[in-house]
């Protein structure tokens, strides 16, 4: 049955080459922990992506309850945390996932660096990877404000104050992110938009570029 559905679609769309491009590639011995246990260091990139998927899914569920305005934001998080079935677990997944993704990405960066995998011809993929790192830090910064509790508010005030001290662009940057004279309603709305639309959009584009380049060039050889 499945085969017939596949054939039906394949006849019309010719998806076999696409499928072979995505699924059919080799896993060399030197990156396979089944053959060399030390190859587990090659897992960090995959784990980063795995946790990113957890972040996207848990984040999608969080937005079902979260209300991005200063009157209801805290109340909605409090309600999610204390009343909604499994709400505390989904929020904890998103909370801890943010930390785990940073740790995994840090380890992945060290692996790529110390195996010299960013050398010619993989320079561009390294640059894209560092950009992904920056986007992730941006997601962490903007997401921290959203619960609108004490630590969120004051951490954001400090972050914006530090940003403002950067010469030339500092003040404009703060105005852009803060959206007004104080950290308030507009700041929360902007951080929400950045956290939920702008940065995830950038992240998905960069991840696509990252993976297409890996597939194109193959994984770097053994040292």
């Amino acid at each position, binding site marked *: 049955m499945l085969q017939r559905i596949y054939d039906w679609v394949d*006849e019309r769309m010719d998806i076999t080459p696409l*499928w072979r491009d995505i699924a059919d590639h080799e896993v060399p011995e030197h990156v*396979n922990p*089944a053959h060399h246990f030390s190859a587990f260091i090659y897992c960090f990139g995959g*784990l980063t992506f795995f946790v990113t998927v957890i972040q996207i899914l848990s984040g999608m569920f969080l937005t079902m309850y979260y209300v991005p305005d200063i009157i209801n934001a805290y109340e909605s998080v409090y309600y999610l945390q204390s009343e909604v079935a499994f709400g505390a677990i989904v929020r904890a997944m998103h909370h801890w996932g943010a930390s785990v993704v940073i740790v995994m990405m840090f380890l992945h960066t060290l692996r790529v660096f110390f195996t*010299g995998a960013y050398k010619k011809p993989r320079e561009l993929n*390294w*640059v894209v990877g560092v950009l992904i790192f920056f986007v992730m830090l941006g997601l962490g910064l903007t997401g921290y404000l959203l619960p609108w509790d004490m630590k*969120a508010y004051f951490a954001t005030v*400090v972050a914006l104050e530090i940003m403002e001290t950067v010469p030339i662009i500092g003040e404009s940057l703060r105005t852009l992110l803060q959206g007004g004279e104080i950290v308030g309603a507009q700041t929360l709305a902007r951080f929400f938009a950045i956290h939920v639309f702008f940065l995830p959009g950038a992240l998905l584009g960069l991840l696509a570029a990252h993976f297409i380049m890996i597939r194109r060039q193959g994984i770097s050889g053994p040292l």
Partner: protein
Amino acid sequence: MHRGKGMKFVGDSRVPAEKKPNIPKDYSEFPGKTEAFWPNFLLKEWLVGAVFLIGFLCMATAYPASLEGVADPTDSAYIPLPDWYFLFLYQLLKYQFASGDFELIGNVVIPGIAFGALLIAPWLDNGPERRPSRRPIATAMMMLGTIATIYLTWESVEEHDWEAAEEQGEIITDDDIIEVDQDARGYEIYEEQGCIECHGDQMEGAGAAGPDLYDLPYGAEDIAEIAVEGIGDMPAGLFDGDDEELEVLSEYIEANGQPDDGDDGEEDDDEDDNGDDEEDE
């Protein structure tokens, strides 16, 4: 790939009519023990992923995300702290050489050089050698950066007053507020002596400024002493009334704002209702 003349398409589309068989590549001729990603390796990878997921879910269930009280911009005594992965940048700005007049070094120069170098690493370290031992400068720089990041994060955690941080920002819900007897003489003194400013109009506390005064582990005499001499961050000499007032105040606080036989306070039924509610919960 077949091109040009004689090519057949599906209907009037550009999809070729001749199908390629969906057969995986044969990796047996590849060097070493190469295996196919799909489905061999992916299956094993998913097993490891499942174990990781279970561990992660256990952690998420055992340690819920923290939530403090609702943001109160007027609480100027709150000690702010960014999330842990920004602590190294935050800590950098605390050093003399990177703050004040040298602020630029802490907020632009050092992070700019570090992250800029990270971004263009492939062109800074552009030799063909891949082994860390064969490119000592690149290895040393990365080690330095990693150790500095870990050290700064460590120092920041070390310097932060976690005990004070734990006390601040607590959630104050309506359930936590006991309605105190505002008609009692003790409340009058509580108001006059300025206790109200740091401990709230229901003795529920006011964030970092002052804790709540419910069920204190002190007797009336100790409370009287604290009111005069201070304790912790509370300075001495805040109370300047006479001894009789001090006694009324401390007894009032000891009784959680519910004096049994207030001098001129009326005992009304509202108070009793409140008491019953709390027993029910």
